[in-house]
């Protein structure tokens, strides 16, 4: 037992650096996914013609192809077009684009779940459609989207491990490097797993607190009114 703890202490500095990179990738990708995903959701929900078609095409294309293909395309493929990206930015862009399609669908689901009467009442007050979306629909939809969105956070932290395939030194990649030095795959991966679980539990708790803070009486995903 003591041996195991000692082994963990010896590899922890290295794993910690990896964890920091994993979290950097997660935050970057989630933000990029949000910045692209929310407009895509609005375009798909309220857009017409080519605007809507573009959003649908984008979302379905991204959701319909493996993330690893997207990652390799951006890191190995783009240089052919003269676009050279460092490993970390390439990973953030690939993960972020992938996430944006899923986030768009979460946002769209939340927007569609808002009763049509909310928008009608806003327009009857004289709000434009844009004002109604910004002031009435989105504040409600964004609250409803927190539970599915927190799933996306948790997926993302785990998905960052694919970045090790383009040699980004994140948690999984550090684990792999340690294994090649210590020849202890079982113990090393055990501790890598433990770190993921602890971090994800903390994130889940934080999201839970945020959700409670923003909660409004009688206004939840399940029982409206």
């Amino acid at each position, binding site marked *: 037992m003591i041996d195991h703890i000692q082994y963990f202490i010896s590899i922890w500095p290295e794993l910690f650096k990896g964890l920091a990179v994993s979290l950097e990738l997660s935050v970057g990708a989630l933000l990029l996914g949000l910045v692209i995903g929310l407009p895509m959701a609005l375009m798909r929900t309220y857009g017409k013609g080519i605007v809507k078609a573009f959003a649908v095409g984008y979302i379905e294309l991204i959701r319909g192809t493996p993330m690893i293909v997207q990652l390799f395309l951006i890191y190995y493929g783009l240089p052919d077009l003269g676009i050279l990206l460092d490993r970390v930015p390439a990973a953030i862009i690939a993960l972020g684009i992938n996430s944006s399609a899923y986030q768009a669908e979460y946002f769209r689901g939340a927007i569609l779940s808002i009763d049509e009467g909310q928008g009608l009442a806003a327009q*009857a*007050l004289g709000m434009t459609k844009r004002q109604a979306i910004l002031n009435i629909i989105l504040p409600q939809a964004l609250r409803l989207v927190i539970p599915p969105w927190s799933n996306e956070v948790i997926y993302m932290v785990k998905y960052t491990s694919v970045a090790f395939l383009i040699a980004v030194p994140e948690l999984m990649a550090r684990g792999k490097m340690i294994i090649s030095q210590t020849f202890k795959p079982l113990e090393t991966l055990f501790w890598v797993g433990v770190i993921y679980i602890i971090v994800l539990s903390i994130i889940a708790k934080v999201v839970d607190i945020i959700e409670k803070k923003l909660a*409004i009486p009688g206004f939840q995903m399940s029982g409206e009114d």
Partner: protein
Amino acid sequence: MAKPILRVENIHKKFKGTEVLKGLSLTVYEGEVVVIIGPSGTGKSTLLRCINRLTEPDSGDVYLEEQKIEPGKSNFSYIRQQIGMVFQDFNLFNHLTALQNVAIGPIKVKKMDKKKAYDLAMKELARVGLAEKAANYPAELSGGQKQRVAIARALAMDPKIMLFDEPTSALDPELIGEVLEVMKDLANAGMTMVVVSHEMGFAREAADRIVFLENGVVAEMGSPEKIFNNPEKERTREFISKITRLNSVAKGREVL
């Protein structure tokens, strides 16, 4: 005669091939309370929605004080602000308190100063007897209270006319009275109102004119006196007696 506030001219509206409104025309005068009755599916709600363009009519025009209501025109939002609307299912904004529900129109649409808007909202809530519920969210209010907040929300925009789309039909019988009281107060205060409702007691007491809509056109209209006691058409008489009976049976209340 008072001056016309609202003029509906020859409105046609089809839904999926079925013509709901068939060239309907109606003029509402300042301070008048018009109650619209008629069988279900006859286009009462559609008429109200065509007035403030929540539904786009296929043809026909609507004028508010000689200003044509046209989506896309620069004054469209301004005209819409002056038409208050109260919905059957309240449609209070679920993420806002009663006070915020009433204040958001003046703040976002009229760009009113927030402090002023909240003062105004408080005044309007007091007017419908709900000042003490200002901090409550819609889910914490009864149906009758929700509808009163919805009325306050419309009043806060200082409308020239108020449209009521079956304001009491989603309410439990014991909650209907409080909403009708508020509406009667409004009528007494001189508000111009178009009310789609089958509350015959309210119609008899508060209406200046009753419009009987059938098959997408005005079948008959006149004073409550005439429509209730001496209608020209047999269909009107049948409908009135049916509704009056239903009102008293279903709700177990005395019909005025």
